[in-house]
């Protein structure tokens, strides 16, 4: 090969390389055009999603107010501290500093550490809420040395009446994992955001929640905030007006004292539930802050079941409170109310005697209700058959599940022959009839149903219980003869104001009288003559029940009071009903009575709850260290 040939070869190959370079340049130009023209939209979006972080601003929850606009659930501004994961530089040191400043318990520190390890980006991790100003300030002044710590002002739910409205409104809490998985709504994991967990807070969630606001933040790759781009303010949830009278609700809850029981008061014209108290109850304020393990144990171990809304979810044999309803059935079946049944202190059916509470002698319907004579109702119900009574029971609201925004209601049993056939594959017997006639046996009702029954008898109207908003006037009259109602109401007047079983509980008011009917329900079948009275353990004692309405002249309110294991209706339930109805007409007199009671019981609800908690803790530590889960 010569030098000339070599030169030619060089030129050829240099041109090849030059062509190669031109080719690469063309490829690069093409690639860049592809990225910036064809894929421009996609990458623009990606650049935006890099740059902009959306931070949700939890909406303020709507208030719950009573029928007069008095607040039942409101929002209180509080102080909270969150961690912004992207901005935290030294997680361990930061958490340690916060634990010291805020006096965080070890399990909380562990939770924060775990959540921070899992978290990414700008989604804050809650550290503590409901802080007092001192702690909040202590964190705030140390911010320069604690990057990523975000103290904020937020809102927390507050229930001024505390435990008195616990079962009614429920409580709010942080959404759990399942709730977030189900909804996939990023709002649910926004710190400070709570959802309804029980009662009305849960069932009316959509109305109360409101619309979250949002902040569009420009942040750097390291999570440093550059500026706020825009803010959409939140829309707070709607106000939820209840039919409840908060004053009455609170009064009834307090008046129940240390008893386990419930008070339901209805406007007997419209069906408005003006009071639905169940005690003992939990304090929704402590639930909304996240309840401690001890507090939870204390509540769930309590034999008085503070976690159950007894007004809706406890079922009782109604006992003699059913007798006005049975009387309506008797009248409807054509029984002459003046027909006399002689009461020798019991009723023989075959070789078995069904007891009455006394030897009442000759009884017509009026006296039978006033004296609560079982014999009369045994005899008369046998005459017309229980199936006819069951029809009346349903017309007066028993056995029904009402259309209410509540988490659950137990609707109980109104038995009849068909029901028994279906359920037990047995025929209805005469002794079934006798038991059912006096509200025992298969009959089971809840306190709200008793109140509805009382309201329908009191007004003769087809009232259905209501909890939300305002009624459009009185309910339509029931298609039953008004004189039947009149007769039964007269007998119920006699129970309280005449020669009846609840004479001690008549109202101490001028011109306003109460009609009612006592009931005593056996908890277990006890051999004749040995009823669940004072000597037996609490949980075997008879329930005390009372249904009533007032004023008798022109009924406006109807109520049911049930005292669990209260021994008897006239003894335990009627006095509570008397005070609760008194509150509606003469607040001062009612409050004066309550003041006396609370003094002897040891303070109001929250004071007694605090006292019980101390006792429970003391008993627990005395019993030795219980294994804590």
């Amino acid at each position: 090969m010569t030098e000339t040939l070599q030169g030619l070869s060089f030129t050829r190959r240099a041109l090849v390389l030059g062509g190669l370079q031109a080719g690469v340049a063309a490829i690069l130009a093409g690639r860049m055009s592809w990225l910036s023209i064809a894929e421009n939209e996609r990458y623009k979006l990606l650049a935006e999603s890099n740059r902009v972080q959306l931070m949700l601003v939890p909406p303020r929850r709507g208030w719950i107010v009573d029928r007069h606009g008095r607040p039942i659930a409101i929002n209180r501004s509080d102080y909270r501290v969150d961690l912004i994961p992207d901005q935290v530089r030294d997680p361990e040191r930061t958490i340690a500093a916060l634990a010291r400043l805020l006096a965080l318990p070890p399990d909380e520190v562990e939770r924060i550490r775990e959540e921070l390890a899992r978290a990414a980006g700008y989604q804050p991790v809650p550290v503590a809420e409901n802080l007092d100003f001192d702690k909040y300030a202590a964190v705030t002044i140390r911010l320069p040395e604690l990057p990523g710590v975000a103290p904020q002002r937020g809102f927390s739910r507050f229930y001024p009446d505390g435990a008195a409205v616990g079962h009614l409104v429920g409580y709010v809490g942080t959404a759990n994992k399942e709730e977030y998985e189900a909804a996939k709504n990023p709002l649910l994991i926004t710190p400070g955001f709570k959802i309804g967990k029980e009662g009305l807070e849960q069932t009316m969630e959509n109305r109360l929640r409101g619309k979250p606001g949002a902040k569009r933040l420009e942040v750097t790759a390291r999570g440093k905030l550059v500026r706020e781009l825009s803010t959409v303010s939140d829309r707070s949830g709607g106000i939820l007006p209840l039919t409840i009278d908060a004053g009455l609700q609170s009064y009834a809850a307090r008046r129940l004292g240390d008893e386990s029981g419930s008070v339901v008061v209805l406007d007997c014209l419209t069906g408005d539930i003006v009071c639905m108290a169940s005690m003992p109850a939990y304090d929704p304020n402590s639930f909304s802050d996240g309840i401690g393990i001890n507090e939870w144990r204390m509540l769930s171990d309590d034999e008085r079941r503070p976690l159950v809304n007894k007004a809706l979810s406890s079922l009782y044999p109604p006992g003699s409170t059913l007798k006005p309803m049975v009387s309506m059935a008797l009248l409807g079946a054509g029984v002459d109310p003046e027909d006399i049944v002689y009461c020798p202190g019991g009723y023989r059916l075959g070789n078995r005697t069904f007891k009455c509470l006394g030897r009442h002698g000759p009884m017509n319907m009026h006296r039978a209700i006033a004296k609560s004579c079982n014999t009369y109702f045994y005899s008369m119900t046998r005459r017309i058959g229980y199936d006819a009574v069951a029809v009346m029971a349903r017309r007066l609201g028993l056995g029904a599940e009402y259309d209410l925004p509540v988490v659950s209601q137990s609707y109980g049993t109104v038995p009849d022959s068909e029901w028994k056939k279906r359920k037990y594959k047995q025929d209805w017997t005469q002794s079934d009839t006798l038991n059912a006639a006096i509200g025992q046996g298969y009959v089971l009702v809840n306190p709200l149903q008793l109140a509805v029954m009382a309201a329908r008898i009191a007004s003769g109207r087809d009232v259905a219980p209501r909890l939300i908003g305002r009624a459009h006037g009185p309910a339509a009259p029931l298609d039953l003869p008004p004189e039947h109602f009149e007769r039964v109401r007269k007998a119920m007047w006699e129970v309280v104001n005449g020669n009846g079983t609840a004479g001690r509980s008549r109202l101490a008011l001028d011109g306003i009288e109460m009609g009612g009917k006592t009931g005593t329900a056996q908890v277990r079948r006890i051999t004749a003559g040995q009823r669940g009275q004072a000597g037996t353990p609490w949980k075997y004692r008879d329930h005390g029940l009372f249904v009533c309405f007032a004023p008798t002249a022109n009924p406006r309110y109807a109520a049911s009071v049930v005292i669990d294991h209260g021994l008897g209706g006239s003894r335990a339930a009627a006095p509570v009903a008397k005070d609760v109805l008194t509150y509606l007409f003469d607040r001062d007199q009612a409050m004066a009575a309550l003041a006396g009671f609370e003094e002897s019981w040891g303070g109001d609800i929250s004071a007694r709850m605090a006292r019980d908690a101390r006792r429970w803790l003391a008993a627990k530590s005395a019993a030795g260290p219980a294994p804590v889960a």
Partner: protein
Amino acid sequence: MSSSSLVPAPIAQLPWRLILLVLLIAGFGILVQFSSAGGSLMPWALPQAVRFGAFLGMAILMSYVRPDSFKAFAFPAYAVVLLLLVLVEALGFVGGGAQRWLDLGVIRLQPSELMKPVVILAVARFYDLLPAGEIRRWTAIWPAAALIGLPAALVLLQPDLGTASMIGFGGLMVMFLAGLPLRLFLGGLAAVAVAIPVGLSFLHGYQRQRVTIFLDPEADPLGAGYHITQSKIAIGSGGLTGKGYLNGTQSHLDYLPEGHTDFVFATMAEEWGLIGGLFLIGCFFLVLLWGMRVALAARTRFARLTAAGLTGTIFFYVAINLMMVMGLAPVVGIPLPLFSYGGSAMLTVMLCLGALMAIDRDNRGERRRR
């Protein structure tokens, strides 16, 4: 020359077309450094400008050196730089950590950068010495292979895959231009094509992932693919005309890593769009075109091979960097010459350009003498 009446001859004789291109590229780069620092001369734009001025002066001074002097200088320079490479390796070994530079107090010298032009000179000098008839013999291959392989291996040990492959590519290109049989290169290409999948199968999972992530960076956008993903977002979101000077979000909010050094092209493209990108690619292409013309016009075999080889070195810089930022090549730390912040690469490229200008001056002098 006609303009000699207005401008003194030494100035008029400078290769103004090239100098203008270099000024455009570097000036544009400084503008981007200014934006990259959030609209500030410090810490990047001003030092870069000062350095560029100094290196440009150095390159112009170099253009007065006669190409024959480079010839004499080729092997000694190669020996010195190779020694420095060994020294770096030894210091790194003693110091217990890999390092690429020697701290000379005043400057940090990165011998592997210097090796890029020096290996071209050495291989060109070797083929210059080789008689034309020997070119198809074994003796035409192994000394050149050793000249290339030794420094490439040392740099690979540092470990610096990008620089090592550039030394390899540069030397091979000179071998190709020297007229070695074509089948050697075609065979070699075929061998590499086979070796790549085999070699990959020997790598550990994470190593393989680092090499191949550029094929699908979205597969691991926060990990191995982060650089490429963010770079493509920056380029793609710029669109035709860009987001406007000083308005790039990817670079200013730190989503784009190495936004003033290796990925400076993405920073630029975000703000100047496709127009800025094509302008820059065009400028580089014209520089390379100028270089190849100098090579084709060169008088001696050594000058020809050197000029083409140095042009090729600049080409590899530009091509590898741009392919990397556009997601066509794996992330290897190769900066964009004259445009990226940093002294080492700029020094290397200015040395290349200085030598090219010297050859160009020689070419033109030859024409005048004729």
